[in-house]
């Protein structure tokens, strides 16, 4: 008979160290950040007690109360009550508390005890508590509440063995909530928490000035705080574009080496063309941007784990409130500059349902890294010359600013239309102490994001690139002329059909086809353009390949002899890519997080129409004005 595997849930306030403990117990690498909202979904793993008994461990999102409005709080409550599909009701709950902050953290623990589930209190960060002069008495706490209490320091794996010993058979019984019938529940829990702290966690002085206070005096200063904030954001983005060149060169060299191997090993023919031009060239034009994506996630992880991200949210609250959002929307929107998917998932920490929907709706307009291949191809065409230079950097910055400002404008309008929340939500945020980043977790998270990107490149993008290659190659014509062959192929015929639709936006049929193919994943645009304009891609020299493509595009003309890719056309194309939602995985995540496909479909339709309208208006008005 199969032995029932018991379920242990980790619950507690944000920043209590649940995920650190989860990783210690299960040996896995759940994401950890020193900012509320780092764990936005349930994570499960397995652990063994010292007696060899297997346990399923569930890491719940942090919450201040089980009655909160935010989705992550509701998810935590549902998990504790056994209302989450495919997840057993916990047999025991490890309430992870910040030992230096028991007055607040005990309130949730008391609420969990009231549910009738057996509880073990885990006093984490005992080093911080002791260094702040707190006199902890876990024994007294245990005797008063009638639950096991285990002090630990999860980030140094101290106390883990004792904790595993506490989760032994028989499991501790559920404790009685003796305070539950004494007046209003919230007040009763608070009174009880204060009594317990008087008994077991005496605090010598609640307001010792700490290093974090001294740093906040500068970093949250009304003037200098903003100077540092803008400086840090500028440094992050400048670093990404400067330091990424070296690893991008490594990726290029690797592609060139693989391409050379294939060329040497295979005879000339369709299959070799598919592998070199289609797969290596096509997927390579996307993978080359992996270093920049990783660097942006690295800096976001660094800001989160150090505690600065909470300060950034505090600073940004005033600005965000002018567009109907709060400072809590800052992290999701900042993350969306790397990729909208984790950004949209991070909105679970926003209490207001309507604010959350608005943030989800506008997040794709934070120009994500998937747009970079398109921008790097097109921006030099605006100014002439090759890639690089501070002028082009300013244009790229302008693109980011334009997308962000439009997002804020639409957020303001949409927030107004949705009306006020049923229960007014107020800005409230814990400012955790500044801490040294936990490097193992920062780098493990990077590896996860990098793998997710490569998986997308190896599946969705690879699939599209293969289809593109086939559509461009077949059916073959008898002509030797590449233009004739392309015109005869499926892609050529689609281009002819689509041209009347996209010409008012300044695109010819081939560009329109490339735009169409990039609706599944916008990174594919460059690969499509290489194929549609019959420019060979050198996997060993991506920059040179883009230069060759730009030269080809610059030489293209309409039937009347006018330049096809004059600056106005390029601006029109750039605008389309700034505003269009071209990422099926993002739409899928939006449908899930918004709770309805209507939002995902509506967002897609709105953004597509907006992008097309922006391109149309700019191109037509610009043409009338003689540009």
């Amino acid at each position, binding site marked *: 008979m199969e032995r029932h595997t018991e379920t242990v849930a980790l619950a507690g306030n944000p920043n209590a160290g649940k995920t650190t403990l989860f990783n210690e117990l299960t040996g896995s690498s759940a994401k950890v950040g020193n900012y509320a909202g780092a764990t936005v979904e349930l994570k499960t793993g397995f652990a063994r007690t010292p007696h060899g008994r297997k346990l399923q461990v569930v890491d719940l999102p942090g919450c*201040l*109360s089980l*009655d*909160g409005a935010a989705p992550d709080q509701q998810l935590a409550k549902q998990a504790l009550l056994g209302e989450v599909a495919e997840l057993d009701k916990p047999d025991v709950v490890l309430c992870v508390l910040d030992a*230096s*902050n*028991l*007055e*607040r953290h005990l*309130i949730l623990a008391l609420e969990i005890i009231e549910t009738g589930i057996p509880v073990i209190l885990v006093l984490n960060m005992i080093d911080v508590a002791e260094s*702040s002069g707190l006199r902890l008495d876990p024994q007294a706490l245990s005797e008063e509440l009638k639950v096991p209490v285990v002090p630990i320091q999860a980030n140094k794996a101290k106390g883990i063995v004792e904790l595993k010993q506490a989760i032994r058979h028989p499991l501790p019984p559920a404790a009685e909530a003796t305070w539950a019938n004494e007046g209003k529940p*919230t*007040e009763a*829990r*608070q*009174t009880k928490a*204060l009594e317990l*702290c008087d008994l077991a966690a005496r*605090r010598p002085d*609640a*307001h010792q000035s700490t290093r*974090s*206070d001294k740093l*906040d005096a500068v970093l*949250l200063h*009304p003037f200098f705080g903003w100077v540092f904030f803008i400086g840090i954001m500028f440094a992050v983005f400048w670093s990404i574009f400067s330091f990424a060149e070296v690893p991008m060169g490594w990726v290029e060299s690797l592609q060139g080496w693989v391409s050379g191997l294939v060329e040497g090993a295979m005879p000339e023919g369709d299959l070799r063309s598919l592998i070199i031009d289609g797969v290596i060239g096509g997927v390579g034009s996307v993978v080359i941007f992996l270093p920049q994506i990783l660097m942006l996630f690295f800096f976001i992880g660094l800001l989160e784990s150090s505690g600065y991200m*909470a300060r950034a949210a*505090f600073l940004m*609250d*005033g600005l965000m*409130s002018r567009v109907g959002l709060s*400072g809590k929307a800052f992290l999701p929107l900042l993350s969306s500059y790397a990729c909208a998917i984790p950004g949209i998932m991070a909105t679970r920490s926003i209490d207001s349902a309507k604010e959350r929907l608005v943030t989800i709706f506008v997040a794709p307009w934070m120009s994500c890294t998937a747009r970079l291949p398109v921008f790097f191809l097109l921006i030099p065409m605006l100014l002439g010359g090759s890639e690089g230079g501070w002028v082009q950097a300013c244009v790229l910055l302008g693109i980011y600013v334009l997308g962000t400002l439009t997002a804020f404008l639409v957020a303001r309008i949409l927030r107004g239309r949705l009306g006020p929340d049923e229960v*007014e939500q*107020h*800005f*409230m*945020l*814990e*400012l*955790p*102490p500044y801490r040294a980043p936990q490097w193992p977790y920062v780098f493990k998270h990077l590896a996860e994001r990098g793998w997710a990107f490569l998986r997308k490149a190896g599946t969705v993008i690879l699939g599209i690139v293969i289809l593109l290659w086939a559509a461009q190659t077949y059916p073959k014509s008898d002509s030797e002329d590449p233009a004739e062959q392309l015109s005869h192929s499926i892609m050529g015929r689609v281009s002819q059909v689509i041209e009347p639709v996209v010409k008012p936006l300044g695109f010819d049929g081939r560009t329109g086809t490339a735009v169409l193919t990039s609706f599944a994943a916008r990174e594919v645009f460059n690969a499509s353009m290489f194929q549609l304009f019959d420019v060979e891609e050198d996997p060993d020299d991506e920059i040179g390949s883009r230069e060759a493509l730009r030269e080809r595009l610059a030489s293209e003309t309409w039937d009347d002899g006018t330049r096809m890719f004059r600056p106005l056309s390029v601006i029109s194309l750039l605008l389309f890519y700034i505003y269009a939602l071209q990422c099926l995985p993002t739409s899928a995540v939006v449908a899930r997080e918004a709770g309805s496909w209507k939002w995902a479909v509506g967002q897609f339709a709105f953004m597509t129409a907006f992008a097309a309208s922006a391109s149309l208006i700019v191109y037509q008005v610009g043409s009338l004005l003689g540009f």
Partner: protein
Amino acid sequence: MPQATAHELENDSLQSLAQATVGCDFHIRFLEGPACDQLRRLGFCETLQVRKLANGRNLICSVCGTRMALSRKLADQVLVAPVPA
């Protein structure tokens, strides 16, 4: 002329956390307003000591060693009295 009760006199001497002076310590006397439950979930309750650290659109205070940022609207619902010197 009706005499004011000690309770009423005490209430008159209270101020909201939003009005309180930065850098001073206060005792929380009452939580009054529609967001009381939100405040209690954050850990605010009567008799707790709080130090106001910064003012502004959102103010910063320290409660039981934890630094919290609160909107002024929330802080208006926390009535405090200065800690005697």
